[in-house]
């Protein structure tokens, strides 16, 4: 059974978003890490980069494949999780805590309304 914390928002492409003031923290869900299994490499965006909602800005590689990670919202990348590049398996072991990817300063907070609630995300993954 996938862990879907109730205090986060989600995307159809399996990212989670934790909002604090005008900043959002982004990672991938427990369901996504279980699907990928064995994450061996994470490529993070440069801080300062401006991204649009839905833009590919990280790459997560498992043994088998490379997968793009999309920014759920528009804004400027303010911080990235360096430790996850040294220990990519944090994505598998701590998807909602130590395995986060980046923080983004929201340029259009209204976009948050388009994200999935925990219940909707659970429905999407057939949970």
């Amino acid at each position, binding site marked *: 059974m996938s862990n879907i914390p109730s205090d986060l928002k989600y995307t159809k492409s399996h990212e989670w978003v934790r909002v604090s003031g005008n900043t959002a923290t982004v990672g991938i869900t427990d369901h996504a890490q279980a699907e990928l*299994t*064995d994450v*061996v*490499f994470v*490529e993070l965006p440069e801080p300062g980069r401006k991204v649009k909602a839905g833009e590919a800005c990280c*790459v997560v*590689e*498992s*043994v*088998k494949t*490379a997968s793009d990670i999309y920014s759920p919202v528009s804004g400027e990348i303010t911080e990235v999780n360096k430790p996850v590049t040294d220990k990519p398996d944090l994505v598998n072991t701590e998807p909602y805590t130590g395995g986060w990817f980046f923080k983004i300063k929201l340029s259009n907070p209204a976009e948050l309304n388009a994200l999935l609630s925990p219940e909707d995300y659970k429905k999407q993954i057939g949970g």
Partner: protein
Amino acid sequence: MLKRTALFSAHQKLGARLIDFGGWEMPVQYTGIVEEHLAVRNAAGIFDISHMGEVTVSGAGAADFLNSILTNDIRKLTPGIGQYTLMCNERGTVIDDLYAYRLCGDVYFLIINASRIEADVAWMQVQAAKFPRHSELSLTDASHNYAAVAVQGPRVNEFINAVIPGASISALRVNAVTDLKKNQIGGFKFENQSVLVSRTGYTGEDGFEIVGSDDAIRHIWDKTLADGAPFGIKPCGLGARDTLRTEVCYPLYGHELDEETTPIEAGLGFFVSLDKGEFNGRSVLAAQNAAGVEKKLVAFKMTDKCAPPRPHYPIWANGASVGIVTSGTQSPSLNVGIGMGYVPPEFAKRDTKIEIEIRGKCFAAIVVQKPIYKVH
């Protein structure tokens, strides 16, 4: 509609993730590629290889016919022995790579790649029609009659005799499955059916491949998982099969081998018997063997910390793009990016510094001797 093997419901029951592999719905992984890979390196694993093709060739003309279409010398085979070999066209490029077994007298059994069954059989039929003694030849695609599993790993010999007990009754006569030596094949009785067991595999580890009816293989799958459980056996998917064979640099058709590549370029000259007489592609292969090749298959390890190399990534050397990666992955045994690819011979020497282009950036790698991972 994807084809399904006799073990399809077994895979579903185990919660396997299924993918389309050359038209077959096959398990890519059960619990995870790394876990399955390490099970095979350290203990044991079982793979469904029922998608692979089987062709029987028999008759007084069989040996001469096979010697005219395959690169290795079939006359080296005594009954109960198999060999790795390649089937080439007149240009010396590879139609398929396969295992050829001599079961007895004039009866030969070929195991071919799933994705090549139609191409191989069509090619063999055309060649058979041209063969002067075609009346002394019988060629049958028996692929739909057989399912198969590979049981691989250092601990397999501790339980395989319990799975298939007793002495062989055909091909090589031995008292027990574990009496088979590398490349030997025996026919064994299993629940009143006959199954073929060879000491071969595609992982670099010791192990066996077992071919039989759908029913027999379903029972052998269950029995192997039960008897192997105390030894740490795991069901393994195509993902682990690919990382295991890449570590030991076994070629995969469609990656290292295709109809634009010769066995000499692929570094498989050991399996090309240039002095056995005429065979398809011989003159091209002899010329390459004498004069050298324009591209050579190399193995490499990443020396930069970077994403794993993948098939189709460009290979760079001296500031120029010089080749293409054919297989690449993160090595679960070595925990480093590894791969194979074709480069001009001047970059094929061991310790040559090359670069792999990953998403527009180049990362350092070094050419290493094959196999990349040495089995203990």
